[in-house]
C-alpha cells in the first residue's frame, strides 16, 4: 500500500480513501489468485470453441449447466459471433485430454460444432485498460 501511494504520488491516507471509494463504487470488486496448473501436473491447456444448436430452446442454459460439472473446465465464456461458447480445458497429458474430450465434452448437450485451439505460450497477460 505504501508502494502504491508512492507510485500514485499521493499520501497514504488519501490512497486508502481512494481505494475504498473504488470499492464502494463497484469498480474494484475484489482480488483473486490464479493457480499455476502446470505446477500441479496439468501441462495441457486447450481452448474449445463451440457452436451450439440454437434451435433447442434452452440450449445455452443446459449446455452451460452441464459444462460447469466438468472439473477440468477452468473458464467458460459466451460470445456474440461465429463462436457461441469457449471452454478452457486443462489436462495432465494428451491421453488424459483425449479421455476428457471423449467422455465429458462430447457428451455435453446441444453441441453443433467444436474447434480446438491448443495453447502454446502466453505472450502477454495483463489487466490494464488504456485509461
Amino acid at each position, binding site marked *: 500500500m505504501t508502494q502504491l501511494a508512492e507510485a500514485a504520488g499521493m499520501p497514504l491516507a488519501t490512497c486508502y480513501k481512494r481505494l475504498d471509494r473504488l470499492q464502494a*463504487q*463497484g*469498480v*474494484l*470488486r*475484489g*482480488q*483473486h*489468485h*490464479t*493457480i*499455476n*496448473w502446470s*505446477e*500441479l*501436473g*496439468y501441462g495441457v491447456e486447450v*481452448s474449445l470453441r463451440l457452436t451450439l444448436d440454437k434451435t433447442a430452446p434452452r440450449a445455452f442454459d443446459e449446455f452451460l449447466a452441464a459444462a*460447469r460439472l466438468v*472439473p*477440468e*473446465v*477452468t*473458464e*467458460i*465464456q*459466451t*460470445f*456474440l*459471433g*461465429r*463462436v457461441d461458447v*469457449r471452454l478452457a480445458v*486443462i489436462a495432465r497429458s494428451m491421453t488424459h485430454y483425449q479421455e476428457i474430450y471423449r467422455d465429458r465434452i462430447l457428451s455435453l448437450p446441444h453441441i453443433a460444432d467444436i*474447434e*480446438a*485451439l*491448443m*495453447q*502454446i*505460450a*502466453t*505472450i*502477454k*497477460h*495483463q*489487466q*490494464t*485498460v*488504456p*485509461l
Partner: protein
Amino acid sequence: MSLDLDATDRAILRALQADATLKASALGRRLGLSQPATWRRIKRLTEAGVIGTRRLDLDLEALGFGVTVFLGVKLALKGRVSLEDFERAVVAIPEVQTVEHVLGLYDYRLRVVARDLPDFERVLRRRIMTLPGVGQVEANVLLSEERRPGPLG
C-alpha cells in the same frame, strides 16, 4: 514432478482463487486450522509455484470499457514475417490485454478491450489490421465470462 495436495491444500487453493485478500487467520478459522498451520501451507504452495499471480476483479464497464472482443488472428505469408515482429508489435497495443500463441485454426488469440463498438472498430482498423504479417482475423464479442475452480475436487 508435481506437488501432492491433500484435501486441506485443495480447500486453501479454492478459497484463494475466490478471494486473494483472505488472511491466514480467517482462512484457518474457516478450515479449522491454526493460523500458523494455515500460513505454513500457503507458504509451501507459494514456494512450489502453485499459487499464481494476484489479480484484481475489475468492473470494466464501470471504467468505461463496455466491450471486450476476442480475436483469432491468422498470420499471412508465414515464414516471410517473423513471429517476433508480430509479437513485438501486438504486445505494444494498449487495448490488447492478452496475447496467446495457439495451435489450430488460428495462430494467435487476442483479448481486446474497447469503450464501445466504434472504439473497437478504430482499434481493429488502425492497430490490428496494420500489424506486420496479419492475415485473417475473426472477432467474437464477449457476452459473459466465468472462472471455474478447476480440478480441485
